[in-house]
């Protein structure tokens, strides 16, 4: 088991009180698993991705544990996290297009980063070139400034840099949303290839684009209002979703297998509850056509069949 997240609670501190962005999130990620993490914006998926590598100054770890390869991940302790970052847990950020220092040649920046992380650049130089070629880039990009590269090229460079030290866990945050459809597919394919070659052990692929995830991910986890509502193999989530929210989410897609836009996901009537003072019980109950009295209690996330987890009284 690569990653084990247990009852993770991370709140945002705001003037008006704590925003319960992650309110008891539990899941496992197996070795070699690519997990798509889906949900509407504001469901906590980006917060989850951030929490696993670096809490920003307004995020607070309230409870729960994270284990990576059997070792505890001390996400609340910024300094203790440093050795894990990059070596064990790495990130391809949402802003990959602007993630490179504009005034440094890419190669020099990579060298400086590696040296700062206790790696001799010469030791990985060959590997770096090989991987750049693998994603279809001329290793000469290392002698260039980021401004000389196209958006797609920068995206691939960041992908290679982030995975250079073969991390156990890679978090890819909305990496495809800024790209056109064909580039999206190429990036997704490269990510699968990286996993297959063992450059990364397992991966969490945060996206709002369920159909893209369906093509590349092994499993899909759907979140709603700070809770996990369902996690199952990709095919199961798409073809036999059990949670009413997942069903409506999938139903809102025009046709499985084609790309969709975020707007479609809003085809479900109503809005998610505020997380400043979240309602008790099932958080979807106000929008759920199947809601009944039991839903005022919070449904536990239970394994309804091997590898298929859902949090709903109707499925349990």
């Amino acid at each position, binding site marked *: 088991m690569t990653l084990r997240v247990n009852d993770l609670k991370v709140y945002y501190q*705001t*003037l008006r009180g704590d*925003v319960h962005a992650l309110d008891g999130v539990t899941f496992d990620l197996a070795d070699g698993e690519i997990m798509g993490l889906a949900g509407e914006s*504001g469901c906590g998926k*980006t917060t989850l991705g951030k929490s696993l590598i670096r809490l*920003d100054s307004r995020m607070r770890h309230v409870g729960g544990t994270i284990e990576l390869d059997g070792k505890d991940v001390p996400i609340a302790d910024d300094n203790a996290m440093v050795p894990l970052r990059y070596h064990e847990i790495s990130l391809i950020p949402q802003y990959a297009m602007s993630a490179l220092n504009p005034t440094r040649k890419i190669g020099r920046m990579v060298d400086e980063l590696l040296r700062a992380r206790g790696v001799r650049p010469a030791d990985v130089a060959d590997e770096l070139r090989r991987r750049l070629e693998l994603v279809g880039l001329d290793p000469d990009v290392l002698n260039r400034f980021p401004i000389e590269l196209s958006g797609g090229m920068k995206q691939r460079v960041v992908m290679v840099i982030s995975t250079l030290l073969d991390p156990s866990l890679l978090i890819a945050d909305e990496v495809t949303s800024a790209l056109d459809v064909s580039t999206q597919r190429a990036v997704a394919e490269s990510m699968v290839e990286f996993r297959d070659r063992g450059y990364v052990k397992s991966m969490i692929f945060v996206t709002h684009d369920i159909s893209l995830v369906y093509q590349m991910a092994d499993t899909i986890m759907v979140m709603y209002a700070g809770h996990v509502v369902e996690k199952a193999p990709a095919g199961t989530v798409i073809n036999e979703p059990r949670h009413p929210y997942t069903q409506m989410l999938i139903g809102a897609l025009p046709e499985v297998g084609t790309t969709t836009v975020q707007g479609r996901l809003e085809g479900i009537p109503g809005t998610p509850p*505020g*997380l*400043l*003072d979240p309602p008790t019980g099932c958080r979807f109950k106000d929008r759920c056509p199947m809601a009944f009295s039991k839903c005022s209690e919070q449904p536990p996330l239970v394994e309804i069949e091997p590898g298929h987890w859902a949090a709903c009284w109707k499925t349990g």
Partner: protein
Amino acid sequence: MTNVAGAPGAADKAGSAEPAGERKVSETLHFARRNPKLLIGLGIVLVFLLIGIIGPFFVDHDPNEYVGPKSQPPNGEYWFGTTTFGQDIWAQFVIGVRSTFLIGVFGGGVAFLIGTAVGFVAGYKGGIVDEILNMITNVVLVLPALVVLIVAIAYLDVRGLFVQGVFIGLTTWPWAARAVRSQALSLATRDYVDLARLSGRRTWRIITAEIAPNMSSYLVMSFILLFGGAVLTAAGLDFIGLGPSNGVSLGLMLESAVAWSALQLGMWWWFIPPGLGITVIVGSLYILNVGLDEVFNPKLREL
């Protein structure tokens, strides 16, 4: 509005039924009341404003009149002492503070009007209009304002506060135009402005009704900076001897202090108050501005 980068959007719709606009105002006030830079800056500026407004009413003689004993250090009767001619420095100071605010409002105001007008039109219209206005802005920007002012004002036989203000305004607007232009440029492409444009509203109506309100905090801060700049420029002109004829201002006080060797005579009370007055007024305004920036710009609240 939580304004937390990356925070769940749902937080915006949090429980209570307050309208969003009202909540934003109350939130701004919340930060404003807790921002020491804003409060201290504003407090000092208001104190000086009061001095400038009320002070002159208690001066019952011409501040340039020779009323008292000569070269007195500060004492009970003449709070700030007297000049070598026996002029009351406190009387000159309070009236000087008043003219400091006047020239700031005047000079800063003229610069603000020109700068925002040029900036808005350039940013909103774009194209050839933008090119031309940009060119003019750059030309005026490169010209060293004070030196232009010296040459222009030197030829005037009679100089007044108003003329000085207009001239300062005419030479110091360019950076405001640039700043407003780039803001307007980014706002002009927003949906609601497009909508207004499609619905056939006039340019100036769109600028005043749709664009300007959305950058009001930015405009306030620009005005404060122009105000401070005008005060400093006017002080420089006064100091060179191009101040209002027969007027009273803090810069003119510095001029006569230097002209009549206050330095060599050790009459520190003659040159310290006027310079301190300018520094404190403009400095407080600048610090107040930083406070405003922190209140309006959530990103800066952190630090």
